[in-house]
């Protein structure tokens, strides 16, 4: 039976680069696929593009491509990535230029566009799925609206001979399902096939998270050589079954346990995982260890897609101002609590206009609140953290400053104060009819 080898080259935009190069060189891959767009990455990329019309794609695009292009060209590995972010055409031009510079000839680079639906969202009467408020209520600070496109545009680019396909927003699993649909000729309305293709994509899209990353728990779950964690390879047969594996020389491990954890990562109803091309059903999935670091995953299925596409809408939601300072030794927690009380009172005295404030003790209650930490012994050292959401940068700045003034005005022994401010780029979603976001493919030749 014919098998297609898919490699995952990145699980997020800042991911390690060497594991992708190892796969390009030694993975005997057909495709190397980089998933680099988190929920809000594209909104931030859109802001970058407004500052520089040639920019707006992944900041690591150039470094990644310089690293893997020679090996991919030599070994005939095609590349698929959503590193185009807010500017897939600009990214494709950049990659073509890098290829030319590296002396790689006859490379066909395709950009898939059509995910930018800001105009569509603005012209309709849409409400956010999360808050129920009208999109129009955020009009002043709206940044971007990008639809999660499906398999079609990427598949068509491959069918027209693309060696490299660069997209903006696409459903993460579609980056992996598209080459399968292209190679095996699976129709996009074959829900059973597209359901299993979604399983394959979902398992691979977070790269190291299926080869032992986000997994180790010393004494319970051991993972060898995480500093050299290998990224996964999916060997997919014409029947859709996949064997997840990794390079023998790379660190990490592939076990039934790593595959089960990743299968359910970020899933709500496993029988109804909504995708642009299918409602995938993971409830019948079977996971079987067939050899060391080789796990077969089968049994994904699905039903017809909903006809709606999810759109991530990005907007500026004020500013976050933050300050931190540490206390240690006997009475550290009591002094830290005193510090929090002082800052709370100071923010009232100076009249800070914060829409939301948090007062955390890192080491005590910052992650899961006071309920979860009750009954646990006091730590040796503790870090005070105060953060607030404000309408203006100036207001945000005052929060960190008030923490910093604890040095000379606060409890005994406060050290290591830090402060920061940042703009909050928030994301909510709307659903639009599928026909309002059509993919288009544009080629750039070297």
């Amino acid at each position, binding site marked *: 039976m014919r098998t297609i080898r898919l490699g995952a080259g990145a699980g997020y935009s800042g991911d390690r680069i060497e594991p992708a190069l190892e796969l390009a060189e030694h993975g005997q891959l057909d495709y190397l696929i980089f998933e680099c767009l988190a*929920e809000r990455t594209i909104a931030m990329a859109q802001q970058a593009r407004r500052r520089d019309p040639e920019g707006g794609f992944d900041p690591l695009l150039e470094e990644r491509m310089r690293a893997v292009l020679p090996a991919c060209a030599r070994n005939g590995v095609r590349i698929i990535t959503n590193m185009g972010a807010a500017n897939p055409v600009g990214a494709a031009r950049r990659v073509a230029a890098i290829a030319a510079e590296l002396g790689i000839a006859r490379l066909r680079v395709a950009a898939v566009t059509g995910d930018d639906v800001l105009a569509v969202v603005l012209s309709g009467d849409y409400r956010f799925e999360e808050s129920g408020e009208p999109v129009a209520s955020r009009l002043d600070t709206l940044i971007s609206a990008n639809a999660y496109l499906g398999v079609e545009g990427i598949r068509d680019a491959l069918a027209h001979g693309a060696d490299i396909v660069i997209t903006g927003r696409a459903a993460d699993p579609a980056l992996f399902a598209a080459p399968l649909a292209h190679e095996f000729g699976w129709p996009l309305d074959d829900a059973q096939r597209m359901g299993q293709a979604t399983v394959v994509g979902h398992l691979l899209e977070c790269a190291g998270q299926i080869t032992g990353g986000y997994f180790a728990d010393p004494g319970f779950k051991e993972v060898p050589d995480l500093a050299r964690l290998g990224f996964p390879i999916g060997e997919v047969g014409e029947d859709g079954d996949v064997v997840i594996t990794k390079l023998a020389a790379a660190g990490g491990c592939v076990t039934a346990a790593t595959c089960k954890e990743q299968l*359910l990562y970020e899933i709500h109803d496993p029988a109804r995982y909504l995708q642009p091309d299918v409602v995938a059903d993971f409830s019948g*999935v079977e996971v079987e260890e067939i050899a060391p670091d080789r796990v077969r995953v089968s049994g994904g299925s699905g039903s017809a897609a909903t006809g709606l596409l999810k759109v991530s809408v990005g907007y500026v939601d004020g500013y976050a101002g933050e300050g931190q300072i540490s206390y240690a030794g006997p009475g550290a927690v009591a002094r830290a609590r005193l510090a929090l009380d002082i800052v709370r009172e100071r923010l009232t005295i100076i009249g800070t206009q914060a829409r939301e404030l948090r007062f955390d003790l890192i080491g005590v209650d910052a992650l899961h609140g006071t309920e979860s930490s009750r009954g646990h012994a006091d730590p040796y050292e503790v870090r005070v953290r105060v953060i607030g959401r404000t309408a203006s940068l100036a207001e945000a700045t005052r929060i960190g400053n008030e923490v910093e003034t604890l040095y000379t005005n606060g409890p005994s022994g406060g050290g290591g104060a830090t402060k920061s401010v940042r703009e909050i780029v928030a994301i909510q979603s709307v659903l639009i009819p599928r026909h309002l976001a059509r993919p288009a493919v544009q080629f750039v030749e070297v």
Partner: protein
Amino acid sequence: MPKLRNLAHARTGDKGNTSNIAVIAYNPGDYELLRRELTPERVRTFFRGVVHGEVLRYELPRLGALNFVMSGALGGGVTRSLALDAHGKSLGSALLDIDIE
């Protein structure tokens, strides 16, 4: 009393203001025990300071896994939350401390 950590492992995921924790039995034979002990009500009580919405549980007997979907768990949503762990990635590890009879 044995802890969940002795019987199962967990992974946490995030989408918007919703967190999901997959709890997976090391030994498939323990799945029924987990299903009986780890009710959505119990998980909601365990996270009462964190989860402000409902807790739904999906069962995956073929994988020996339970998937808990907790709404209102991420400080208003990953992208706007002021929490230190805005993704709630540390929640699954906390749940492993729960007692299993």
